[in-house]
């Protein structure tokens, strides 16, 4: 778990605002094959992987709340789903401490799929009567593909943005563990 310093909190807050504004003002208006990328689950995934489950869940709640407020959507829906996404991504880091370039891509794709399915379930629970169409499924799949392509560059950007405020960067931690004989960050607890 990463200690929440004021600098880290400020950078996370800026990431929430910047991410949501860029999403609504630009990314949402760039349709590719009838759908668009959705940065929210990718941002939450990146924070979960970099900072752990607690930070991931809190960041997911913040992003979801901000998205719902900014777009006049039903409050709490995005928060609820993104809390789960952030917590899940954080737990992957804490339990497995995965290394490798493909990890953000795989976790990003999973996060997007979980977010899409979770959001759809919530909409049906809230009483959307419209039937599910092939077009909806196509859009979800297109978003999944776009997000998978964006997962790695976005993860790198987020990591670079948070690096000055991250006391426990995964790469440095691993390097330290190997040189000092530690097997895993869990061994320190």
């Amino acid at each position, binding site marked *: 778990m990463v200690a929440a310093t004021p600098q880290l909190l400020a950078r996370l807050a800026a990431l929430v605002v910047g991410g949501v504004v860029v999403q609504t003002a630009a990314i949402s208006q760039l349709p590719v094959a009838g759908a668009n990328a*959705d940065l*929210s689950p990718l941002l939450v995934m990146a924070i979960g992987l970099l900072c752990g489950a607690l930070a991931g869940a809190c960041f997911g709640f913040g992003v979801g709340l901000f998205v719902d407020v*900014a777009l006049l959507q039903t*409050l*709490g829906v995005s928060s609820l789903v993104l809390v789960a996404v952030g917590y899940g991504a954080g737990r992957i880091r804490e339990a497995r401490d995965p290394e490798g370039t493909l990890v953000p891509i795989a976790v990003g794709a999973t996060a997007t799929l979980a977010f899409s399915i979770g959001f759809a379930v919530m*909409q049906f629970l809230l009483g959307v009567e419209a039937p599910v169409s092939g*077009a909806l499924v196509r859009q979800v799949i297109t978003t999944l593909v776009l997000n998978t392509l964006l997962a790695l560059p976005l993860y790198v950007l987020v990591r670079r943005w948070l690096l000055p405020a991250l006391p426990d960067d995964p790469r440095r931690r691993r390097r330290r563990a190997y040189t000092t004989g530690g097997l895993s960050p869990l061994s320190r607890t």
Partner: protein
Amino acid sequence: MYDKTVRRRRAVLGLLVACSLILLTAYFGESAGGALHGVQRGASEVLNPVQDGASRALKPVRDLFGWFGDTLEAKGDVEDLRAERNSLRRELLAEEGARVEADRLRKMLELDSALDLERYEPVTGRVIAQSPTVWYATIRVNKGSDDGVRRGQPVINEEALIGEVTEVFSGAAQVTLITDTTSKVTARTSRRGSFGVVEPASAGNPTDLILNFAPSSVNLDEGERVVTRGTVTDTDRLQSLFPAGLPVGEITRIENAGTDTQEVHLRPFANMRNLDVVQILTRPGAGT
């Protein structure tokens, strides 16, 4: 130590989930004038200038993206454009963006004069934000109550009706598109004059609408145009939000024609995935 960390993590997770559920329940249960809706509107009021600024700042990025899309479609232009120097390419990008915008505005003026929309006092605005999820077909435009925009006013683009204003701020307005699952538009077919209600055929499909409640006894044809009905009554109470005659879409197919389960499918004239400049008709009742 480990147990304490796990307990703390789970407690925070439970707290966040509980907060989300409380927000969700309270928001869903209250009326549109409730406290949470008020907070949301207040926050949006603050965010609108930020979104407007970001939308303007990021327009070159969108234009660049659109340019790539156009280039892929017009393969013949690719070779010429590749030969352009970088400075000329930037210039071309700016010109391309201006041309598309001018083309849109010209079409909008043509639609205005063809349908005599000037009497509805249209206010032209630009899309500054769009919902990223397929479950909400909404956009935000940079015109609000300061420009005479009110809730319920119809919104068109250069092609046809696209939706109605559902929330107004001082400098911006939220528009719910006719492809949103909550949208309903009273309409009639242009040739047969058959009445019905246009609704989205399914969630997340911006190219398929349904004309519900159209009488099965009337033979409708594929390709027939559908326009807003613009209900007029002696009292003001039941008047339609939309003036009569605004183009909506055209019939693409009719399932179970002539039966009680008849489904008339339409394709909207407006491309809902590519909205940039729109007009809000601020006096929709002026034509009656």
